[in-house]
């Protein structure tokens, strides 16, 4: 993978020793639950400490929203190795479900919210059976096709308000959405963090690394990847379910936003896909940048996003967290006789070391 840039590593090593990075990362790892709890409390306390409903609170709420989307994408794209370009389909279904249920069926928001999640999961299950049989280019394009087909269909139906969409005036307060998105994000982070330490999580990673081998080891991979896909659908659906009322407006373009789909992939990659913290940090970071660009350079955000994606992919595809942990694990490897890896008779060398 990354072997060519040895000289630059030398300089880096003296400025930022891998042992330190390693220690930092393993501390984070060891206190994962505590870190999550502290961050949650801090975020929950912000409105009490004077964050008022308005522009700033909206920005924070959107950060939580994108973190949910990026983490959901990463569960399938990063952890399981099935990069989807169509996750926003779940979002759109959730968004339209609450919009229609609260406006046309006069259901209360909490009930509509839960039903919307359920609907998104059901949709994910049906679509998953179809698209998860595909791999590579075909999977990516099929998911993009799902997204665009869903968009076209909502544009042509009456119940969705057609191309002009639906305006929603009866909405809960800004603070409600702040806590709702935060809550969904925390639950999802806790779940993904927990799963990543179980054999269920290991199987997902195994599918990413070598699906055939995982099958040969006795895992029915269809079952696992569909489960991951449905989880992603559930949380993305919840995010959409809350978004339509939060935004007070929904139309096919915002509900099934292809550019957002790229944005959340970029967030996961920037932060470090295949980790729990990576997509969340990536979402916070990239959304802040996009927010600044939208304030000072309206109409250029997609140029920036496209550029960011290209630079990330070409520059460091492992993301911030991935690059750091790879860097940190170097030391671990060399300490334990890893040098022998390049020698011919490694077996004996390793044993001599111990």
């Amino acid at each position, binding site marked *: 993978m990354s072997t060519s840039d040895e000289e630059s590593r030398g300089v880096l090593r003296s400025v930022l020793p891998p042992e330190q990075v390693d220690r930092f990362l393993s501390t984070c790892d060891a206190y994962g639950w505590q870190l999550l709890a502290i961050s949650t409390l801090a975020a929950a306390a912000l409105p009490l400490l004077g964050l008022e409903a308005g522009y700033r609170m909206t920005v924070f709420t959107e950060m939580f929203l994108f973190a949910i989307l990026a983490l959901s994408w990463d569960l399938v*794209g990063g952890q399981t190795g099935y*990069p989807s*370009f169509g996750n926003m389909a779940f979002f759109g279904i959730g968004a339209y479900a609450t919009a229609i249920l609260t406006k046309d069926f006069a259901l209360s928001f909490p009930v509509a919210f839960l039903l919307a999640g359920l609907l998104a999961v059901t949709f994910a299950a049906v679509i998953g059976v*179809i*698209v998860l*049989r*595909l*791999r*590579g*280019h*075909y999977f*990516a*394009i*099929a998911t*993009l*096709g*799902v997204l*665009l*087909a869903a968009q*076209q*269909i909502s*544009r*042509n139906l009456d119940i969705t308000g057609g191309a002009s969409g639906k305006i929603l005036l009866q909405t809960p307060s800004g603070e409600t959405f702040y806590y709702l998105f935060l809550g969904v994000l925390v639950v999802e982070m806790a779940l993904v963090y927990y799963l990543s330490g179980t054999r269920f999580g290991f199987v997902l990673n195994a599918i990413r690394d070598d699906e055939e081998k995982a099958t040969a080891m006795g895992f029915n991979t269809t079952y696992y990847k569909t489960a991951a896909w449905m989880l992603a659908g559930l949380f993305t659906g919840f995010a959409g379910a809350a978004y339509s009322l939060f935004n007070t407006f929904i139309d096919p373009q915002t509900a099934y936003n*292809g*550019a957002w789909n*790229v944005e959340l*992939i*970029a967030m996961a*990659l920037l932060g470090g896909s295949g980790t729990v913290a990576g997509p969340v940090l990536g979402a916070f970071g990239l959304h802040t940048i996009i927010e600044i660009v939208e304030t000072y350079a309206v*109409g*250029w*955000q*997609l*140029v920036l*996003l*496209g*550029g*960011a*994606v*290209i630079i990330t*992919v*070409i520059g460091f*595809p492992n993301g911030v967290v991935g690059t750091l942990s790879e860097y940190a694990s170097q030391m671990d490897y060399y300490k334990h006789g890893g040098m022998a890896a390049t020698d011919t008779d490694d077996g004996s060398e390793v044993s001599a070391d111990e």
Partner: protein
Amino acid sequence: MAATQFVVNGLLVGALFAGVAVGFALIWGVVDIINLAHGEMVMLGGYTSYWVLTLVTGNAEGSPLLFLATIPVAIAVLFGIGYALQRILVSRVIGTDIFLTLLVTFGASIAIQQLAIQAWSANPRSIQVSFADPSMNLAGIVVPKMKLVAFAGALVLTALLYVFLQKTRTGRAIRAVSQNPEAAALVGIDVEHTRAVTFGVSSAIAGGIGAFIAVILNIQPQMGLIYTLKSFVIVVFGGVGSIPGALIGGLLLGSVEELVAGFMSSQWTLAVTFTALIVLLVVKPNGLFGQGAEQ
């Protein structure tokens, strides 16, 4: 009778889809990249033709011959853009995870889209070509002359590509690289240059088609993705790297879309196309994987 008219309309437009898809298939086959920015090449070709014509006549109107004279310009400009796209961006991710190649081209796609909006606004534009008698009537079927010209133009471009691949030295190099890049390098072919030329040629054809689309339909900065996806549908149907397959796929897709538009509503054409894409992927997965494009 109505159905025949729809099919004729479909075939006329379908040739344009086929021309776009042929370039898409070529990049896929030779460089093993799904170029999600391929539709943007169509868009840029349309705008090139539009602005050249505007430069000459003061507005985007002109005689058929004057319009046809802008096409070589669109082709040349898009060749350069395609060549540069490969050299600057795509070459850096060849051989890595295919997902990264998709992301890079998608990143390029959305960046180009918005740059185009900034430069030319999001309003749809079209080129007006003046014919004395704009359409003719063949046994009760109306055939607009410009659509016929576009149809012929698309077929000519596709045929030229075919001849280029079969007869020229560069064309043979492209085919060699598509079959085995290592072996091609061993016999002295500059693989990187050849891949960039492939990108250039594919984009050039897309650009030429884009000029025709500017006349018979319209152009708009965000039109690209739809052409990329249509190309994907066509290539999946016709087979990666097969020019006749792409041609048949394109004509078929055009006909299906026109029939849907005619008998249902034009609003449903895209929904049907994307659903066809998913259905095609599901019912033909083995045929697809036989192409060796599976990761």
